[in-house]
């Protein structure tokens, strides 16, 4: 037998052709903030969905940590109700029981040595009982002020056995300086490859489909540049208000809540160069190049707004300043629009118009690639007056899919041309059920795949841009509120486009 065979054994011929899924290693998932909304609405339903599809490792434990009093049974009962209410799949008692068996609870705010010790003891016990190999995933589903205490406690008690991964929820800092401090604090105890910063937009199927659309279709990439694209519009619109999160939103505003993370990530995926492969480092290297290339917009290229009273879906809704917990003279923006340029060879002089806001006319996240007009349509002007430029529209949510607006002849005598849409709706073609973003992201963390997570340098580049924009805002004081709830934002956002002879997409 060859030396290599003696060490590793001959290759298993029975594995060939089997479509084996990568199974995560046995591990314990510790959720800090186990009594919070995120755990109830997203994390536990995602874990249930993964269990139902047999995607969790066979030896697995979940440990919930929260301040609330309780024990394993109370935790399981609470989580069962959460799954019944929020899971996308039909509730199955047998699957739940299997998941519940692996669930444990520790009541601690982790500010005391007692909580740390209890957790360490429990994990050691679970390692022995379930042979988890010392592998750990820690999920920080807690407000940022709690991060340092928890991270330092975890860092102190790290052992050499097994691997450790840390999931950090947004917001990741509130400016560049705080993000750098947070990164530095994390790096004291964890390596960058062990840190998984969540931007849940990256877990969405349609966001990942942007990469498939661009790099799996030979027809798009050759025209995906300044030669053929007139401009790009990215919209992240929410119809809801601040949903009782005044404390957070007053300090964050739209620019930190959406622009700094989701919106810039969508822009990076739209503008990035093809990665050499689909590994975490290759994809993130290309994204960070885009973020570094974004030209800082001047004051005339950024619009901010705040909603006043208005009507959403027929209901009268209060102004932002009338929301509970919001200062009556609040200057927090609930809307941002901007014209951005990516200063590189591919995109020079091609504007990326972005807008995001709360209490807009409807919930919609889209990326619209507007192509240049045909150079010389040989038709009478009246024939094509209803014709708009070609637009490739990526619907991130809802109605996930892709539409292409093309000109087509109206049937009948003569030549009349109008714009029609060719639609590909995800739900209409792949009817297997769209996984929730958190299912994909939790599974990727268990597998150690950081492709869909943001790296430290990406986060810092995003904050650098935000800090510069916010600094410019210190010099003026717009008259808020400047748009009515249920509309598409302030008139000045329209002016931003009209000055360039363009307009926002019609809805």
């Amino acid at each position, binding site marked *: 037998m060859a030396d290599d065979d003696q060490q590793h054994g001959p290759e298993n*011929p*029975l594995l*060939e*052709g*089997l479509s084996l899924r990568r199974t995560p290693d046995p591990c314990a998932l510790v959720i800090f903030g186990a009594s919070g909304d995120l755990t109830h609405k997203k994390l536990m339903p995602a874990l249930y969905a993964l269990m139902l599809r047999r995607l969790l490792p066979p030896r697995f434990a979940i440990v919930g940590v929260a301040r609330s009093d309780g024990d394993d049974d109370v935790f399981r009962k609470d989580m069962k109700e959460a799954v019944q209410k929020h899971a996308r799949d039909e509730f199955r008692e047998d699957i739940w029981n299997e998941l519940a068996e692996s669930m444990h609870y520790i009541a601690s705010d982790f500010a005391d040595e007692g909580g740390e010790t209890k957790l360490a003891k429990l994990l050691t016990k679970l390692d022995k009982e379930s042979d988890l190999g010392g592998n750990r995933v820690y999920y920080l589903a807690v407000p940022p002020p709690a991060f340092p205490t928890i991270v330092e406690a975890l860092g102190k008690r790290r052992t050499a056995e097994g691997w450790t991964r840390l999931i950090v929820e947004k917001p990741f800092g509130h400016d560049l300086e705080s993000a750098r401090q947070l990164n530095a604090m994390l790096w004291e105890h964890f390596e960058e490859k062990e840190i998984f910063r969540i931007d849940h937009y990256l877990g969405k199927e349609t966001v990942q489909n942007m990469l498939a659309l661009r790099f799996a279709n030979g027809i798009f990439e050759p025209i995906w540049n300044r030669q053929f694209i007139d401009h790009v519009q990215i919209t992240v619109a929410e119809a809801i208000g601040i949903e009782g999160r005044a404390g957070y939103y007053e300090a964050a505003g739209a620019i930190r809540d959406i622009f700094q993370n989701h919106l810039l990530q969508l822009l990076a995926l739209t503008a990035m160069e093809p990665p050499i492969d689909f590994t975490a480092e290759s994809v993130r290297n290309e994204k960070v190049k885009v973020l570094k290339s974004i030209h800082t917009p001047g004051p005339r290229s950024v619009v901010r707004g705040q909603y006043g009273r208005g009507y959403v879906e027929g209901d009268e809704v209060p102004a932002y300043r009338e929301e509970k917990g919001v200062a009556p003279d609040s200057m927090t923006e609930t809307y941002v629009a901007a014209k951005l340029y990516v200063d590189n060879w591919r995109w020079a002089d091609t504007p990326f118009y972005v807008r995001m806001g709360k209490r807009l006319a409807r919930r919609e996240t889209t990326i619209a690639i507007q192509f240049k007009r045909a150079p010389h349509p040989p038709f009478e002007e009246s024939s094509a007056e209803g014709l708009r430029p070609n637009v490739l529209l990526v619907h991130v949510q809802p109605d996930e899919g892709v539409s292409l607006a093309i000109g087509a002849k109206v049937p009948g005598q003569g030549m009349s041309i109008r714009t029609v849409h060719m*639609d590909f*709706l995800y739900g*209409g*073609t792949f*009817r297997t059920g769209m996984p929730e973003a958190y299912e994909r992201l939790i599974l990727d963390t268990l597998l150690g795949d950081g492709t869909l997570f943001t790296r430290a340098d990406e986060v810092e580049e995003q904050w650098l841009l935000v800090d510069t924009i916010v600094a410019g805002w210190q010099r003026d004081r717009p008259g808020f509120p400047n748009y009515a709830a249920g509309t598409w934002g302030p008139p000045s956002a329209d002016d931003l486009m009209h000055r360039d002879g363009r307009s926002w997409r019609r809805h």
Partner: protein
Amino acid sequence: MSAPLDLEHWAGENIKLADVDTALAQLRVGVAPAGGPPDLRTSVMTHIAWVPADWEAQARAALAGMGERHPSRAILLFPDPDSGVDSIDADVSLERYAIPDADRNICSEVIELRLHGKRAKAPASVVSPLLISDLPVFLRWRGEPVWESQELEQLVRITDRMIVDSTEWDDLPYPYTRLAQLFERTAVSDIAWARTSRWRTILASLWPDISDVRTIRVRGTDAQAHLLAGWLRSRLDRPEIALEHVEAERLEGIDLDGEPVAFPPGDPPAPSDVLSDELDRFTRDPIYEAAVLATTP
């Protein structure tokens, strides 16, 4: 899986194939809401089913929900060669499904063609005008194919992938030698093989201890037993591995040299999931082909 919202329908006797296209176009227009966007017609393939008389009920049952999972044009061919007339009768329907969170529906097309007399002998010429251009063509052959018949020869010629279920065949393993003659001409999927997938994963996990196995005992269908034995023989390059078969309606257990193998975790896949998975494959499966070749000495 949800039931179709409704099923729009047109039927005709002694039709021309152009009538089918016209009927489909009219049905699509008919179901579009007034002033609203038309339903989406999204197709990922043409799905032909060759359905001898004994298999009509099963074929329709298997088709239920397929339009939802794999939006396609489904063409069911019911041969009736002994009919006294040479003609084609057609039943054309649109199945519409709601798209979650969208204000539009998706529609799938089902074309049932009853081929009377000589028409049953030239099925490829009947379906060729109805194939959706540039999309793969899957042929589901119910029951055991009539080997070397002109119907099979013709349909294989226009097919990218043929799907059979050798559980539906008698006198196994001998028909496998006939099936193997098709491997160079079209990719083949076997539902019976797909149903052994979970067990093959378990058996693979027994490597390297499994490498010197002498006998495999299978409680399952005849097809599953032969295919699993063929798989072990071909993968381990040990044609002498003996098969013991205990008849059962589904794969219930496997013993290796008298020792039972642990049951695979989770639930077995639903029949529609198995077929659905096969419709996602586009290339030849050399492991299956080798297993088929090793079912017979």
